[in-house]
């Protein structure tokens, strides 16, 4: 989709972005607005530059919008009333909770130390797979495998603890 600016393709993009935003935010009430804003920005960007992956960019823009909104709401709820709860807590809120932290924490402790180390370096320190591989004497493939497995471990841990990830099949 290197030249994605063709108007007939925008519908498919719009549908996919909306689905992504629903899953990513867990908030059907705001998904339409965010998806619309995302696509508007994409259209604007695609007019002036070539975009290599339309979806990678779209999802990234959505991520930022969702996180901005999450942060705004958190600030607001801190100011208004500590006990204030939205009827539909966003997925970010669920994943920022003490409970999610405990689940992640337990999961990280149980996983092989090497995998934990790889996740820390990749996600926190933003080291490249190659740099991690060199430091830990692993092939780039093996590093990638640890990251992938690590994500799945985390996802499973949440599932087993009964944390509801929206868009669950």
């Amino acid at each position, binding site marked *: 989709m290197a030249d994605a600016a063709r108007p007939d393709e925008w519908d498919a993009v719009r549908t996919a972005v909306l689905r992504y935003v629903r899953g990513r935010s867990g908030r059907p009430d705001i998904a339409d607005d965010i998806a619309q804003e995302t696509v508007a920005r994409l259209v604007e960007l695609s007019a002036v530059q070539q975009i290599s992956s339309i979806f990678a960019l779209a999802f990234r*823009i959505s991520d930022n919008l969702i996180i901005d909104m999450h942060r705004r709401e958190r600030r607001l709820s801190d100011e208004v009333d500590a006990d204030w709860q939205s009827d539909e807590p966003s997925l970010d809120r669920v994943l920022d909770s003490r409970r999610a932290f405990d689940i992640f924490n337990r999961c990280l402790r149980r996983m092989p130390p090497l995998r934990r180390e790889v996740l820390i370096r990749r996600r926190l320190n933003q080291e490249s797979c190659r740099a991690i591989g060199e430091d830990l004497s692993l092939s780039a493939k093996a590093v990638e495998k640890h990251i992938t497995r690590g994500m799945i471990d985390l996802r499973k841990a949440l599932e087993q603890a009964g944390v509801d990830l929206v868009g669950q099949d």
Partner: protein
Amino acid sequence: MGSEFHDIDMQAARWIDRMNRPVQDTEVAAEFDRWILKDPRHIDAYARLSAIWQSDGLDSALRLAGAVPTASNDDDSQRWPRPAWRRLVGMGAASLCLLFALLVGPRLIMEQTAFATPRGATKLVTLSDGSKIRMNGATRIAVRITPWSRHVALERGEAFFDVAHERLRSFSVDTGGTSVSVLGTAFDVDRLDADTQVVQVYRGLVSVDAGLGRRWRLPAGSGLRVSGDSVRSLRDIKAQHPGWTEGWYEAEDTPVWQLVQSLNRTSARPIALAEPALGELLVSGRFQTNRPAAVLDAVAAIHDLRWKEDGDRYILSR
């Protein structure tokens, strides 16, 4: 269900990691778009794992895991400073790398603005993301904000950055030689000349890249002076913000030329050195920047020098 969903999750996890890499070729990008369009369940899985991967909860848990000593640990330099982990937990800093990469064309849609201060005036700039930049005198910066990145070029002078925390949008400051990326939040960058930069961290954690593969992570209370090939670390920064924001210059075995340069940013009447060698003399102490004559008195007393007013400037000589 079971295994099929498991496969999709594995693919989604692999894509998340790949799309977070700084360099992507168009082949891979196109393949990702095809994968997304192939099955709506791919989108669901990608969305779900993105939320997990980017969450503050995971961020905090990883920080804790990285801070608590584990059995095998032969690589201390890469570790987070242990005593500080409590502060780090919950700060939720690390921004995911990325993005320029997603874009092939060099031209980006951006909000680009330049700010400058004359000598003797400071200025507070608030950016659209809420970050605040306090500019010292005789300073020039160019700010570029896109939906996915925040970048400041410090073209000359000195500025104190109080960065609004964002998980996905990194904030970086480039001084030509040295580049500072922010993981945490408040720091000062002083571009003394083309060769020499001083970075001091007041809150959070920053990563400094001085080129040639030289990188450091500086926690709050520390700093770095990079001058060409030589690097000196600075410690014991106890204040909340740099002294100059309140009209003070803190020197600790600081070369006179550096003190003079800093004074010249604030003083209406610049100080000149009668001979360059005077600049290499070292001074320590706290100087009030809006009273150059008093500072000159002090420096002259320390090194047995003299100074005089000469037209629109001061001259320091032996």
